[in-house]
């Protein structure tokens, strides 16, 4: 027994062990979750309906604005450019183009937000509350008894969740583009990928941190997850550019700042700038520039991963002391 132990405790063994653990735990999410074709209906088609509601509202407002511009009256022979009559045909054409661009930018913002909703819901229901569910079905004690690092377990859940949700998010994005005719202009694909992955890592890092907390809170965690759906959709600007809130005096900036602690907020803001151009919405609705947002996201990713590591270690010890790791059968 002692020889075998000595052979198995070197660094190479530990790295191999934890990589295998990540692979093993991500497997059910990547392979298992796609075995049920019903996901196409529930996780691609239904979210599209949610997106459609916002898109139609924005398109209606865009249509109204365009009608005001193109309607010629004696007082405004070139239509209305905002509150004033357009000066000439060129001003009218420019105003109509701006309305068209803004409508496209709003619809594109909704489609992007809709794809990010998939990740946020995955973080809430399949990361944060996952350890609690693992305990309920009896898996948790088997995980905690295994020699792998606990972060490898969470890492596997996160990698699996990212891959699985990316497939769903891409299908929503493609359907959104095809159905609503959204036009994206990606100027810097590398930056876009960097922001996307930094957002996902920060988001899933937050989920990993929540996972350990939920382990102790048990069933109450369910309510917390439900609480963090709609309010976060709003405060993180899933369906509108978050910078818009900053222009509302009083409560607007407070909500926007609070929402920015969820990595999806800044991530979405940066992704919108990178896919719509930073001049979209007259450059009025962005929180920070893309580079600053990327730096904050990287900082959040590192912070959340470190906090997740310490939370899990502390709460595992606490749970073992209180007998909560295995309470299902006790």
């Amino acid at each position, binding site marked *: 027994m002692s020889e075998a132990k000595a052979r198995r405790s070197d660094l190479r063994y530990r790295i191999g062990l934890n990589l295998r*653990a990540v692979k093993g*735990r991500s497997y*059910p999410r990547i392979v298992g979750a796609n075995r049920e074709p019903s996901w196409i209906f529930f996780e691609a088609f239904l979210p599209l309906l949610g997106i459609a509601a916002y898109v139609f509202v924005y398109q209606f407002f865009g249509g109204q604005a365009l009608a005001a511009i193109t309607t010629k009256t004696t007082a405004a022979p070139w239509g209305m450019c905002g509150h004033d009559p357009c000066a000439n045909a060129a001003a009218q054409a420019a105003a109509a183009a701006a309305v068209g661009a803004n409508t496209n930018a709003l619809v594109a913002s909704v489609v992007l937000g809709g794809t990010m909703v998939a990740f946020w819901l995955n973080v809430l229901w399949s990361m944060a509350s996952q350890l609690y569910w693992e305990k309920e079905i009896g898996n948790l004690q*088997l995980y905690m*008894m295994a020699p792998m690092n606990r972060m490898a*377990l969470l890492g596997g859940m996160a990698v699996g969740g990212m891959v699985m949700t990316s497939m769903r998010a891409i299908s929503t994005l493609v359907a959104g583009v095809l159905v609503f005719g959204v036009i994206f202009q990606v100027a810097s694909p590398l930056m876009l990928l960097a922001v996307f992955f930094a957002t996902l890592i920060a988001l899933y890092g937050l989920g990993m941190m929540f996972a350990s907390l939920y382990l102790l809170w048990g069933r109450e965690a369910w309510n917390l997850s439900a609480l963090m759906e709609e309010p976060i959709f709003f405060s993180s600007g899933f369906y509108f550019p978050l910078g818009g809130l900053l222009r509302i005096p009083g409560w607007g900036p407070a909500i926007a700042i609070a929402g920015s602690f969820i990595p999806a907020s800044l991530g979405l803001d940066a992704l919108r700038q990178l896919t719509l151009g930073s001049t979209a919405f007259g450059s009025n609705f962005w929180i920070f520039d893309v580079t600053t947002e990327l730096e904050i996201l990287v900082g959040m990713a590192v912070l959340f991963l470190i906090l997740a590591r310490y939370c899990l270690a502390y709460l595992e010890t606490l749970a*073992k002391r*209180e007998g909560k790791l295995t309470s299902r*059968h006790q």
Partner: protein
Amino acid sequence: MSYAVETRDLTRIFAGKKKRRRKAEEEVDESVGPVTALDNVSLKIEEGELFGMLGPNGAGKTTLIKILATLLLPTSGQALVAGHDVTKDPFPIRQVINMVSGGETSGYGLLTARENIWMFSQFYGVPSKVSKGRIDELMHIFGLWDKRNAKVRMLSTGQRQKMNMIRGFVTDPDILFLDEPTLGLDVNAARVIREYVTNWVRGQKGKTVLLTTHYMAEADQMCDRIAIIDKGKILACDTPENLKRMIRTETTFRLEVDAIRDLTTFSTMQGVKNFSHKDDIAKNRSFLTFILEDEGPVAEILSTITLQGKKVHSLQKSEPTLEDVFISMVGRGFE
């Protein structure tokens, strides 16, 4: 002598809970006091031993296994597994152990049986090729080969438990904790598991099994040594033969009688060391087991029963079993 498992004055106390329940239209807070699940348990299990823990539900068997499997911290005392302290040094322990519990519902329903076992093997760093080879071999042995590609949610309880057993063996542990592994299984499935576990320990050097069960015959048939545990205390620890020899000077009688309610007379009867009873409500019968110092009180027992107007359907003098040992020690059976 190296020990696979060693505990010294191991104690585990679960904190009390406040329970809220409705009583006569009122919400009432009830405190459930601390529960001593293990009370100064000292135990040594040698490497290569198939060691049994025998005790009724709530005796502390599962708590002990969970402490040894590094899932629960002891309140006081020390537990060493493979020479390492479960509290201070769990990593080397986790490399050499595995655990299978009866009635386990672990795994993911969308994965196949084979995939599920493979997934768990990855948490122990078993290379996929090795793991898949072992899984196929074990699936043949446990008669699960036909179900290898069936989704877990489609498996029966017995098939699922066989899958769990394979999960326990696929990592090739040195020490295996089996917590009521045959619970709820049919005779054949239980036999396959018992045979494999016994051969696994006997056929290889350095493999140790700690088996908890409340099936007497299972413990008697499989184990090298057995500890009898009740209310968190080890009452006796020896080979099955020696345990039974402890009460061989006593006499065991089993009676099947009409359902009997008044048992108080027996507890004060001269010569009755201990007794237990089980009721079969459907048949309206009671089954009594008496541990007697000698055959003297038999006549008095029979007259007490008949005086209550009850009929004696059978009376049998028998060789002591492990259950008799338990009854002799604690004054009640397992059920």
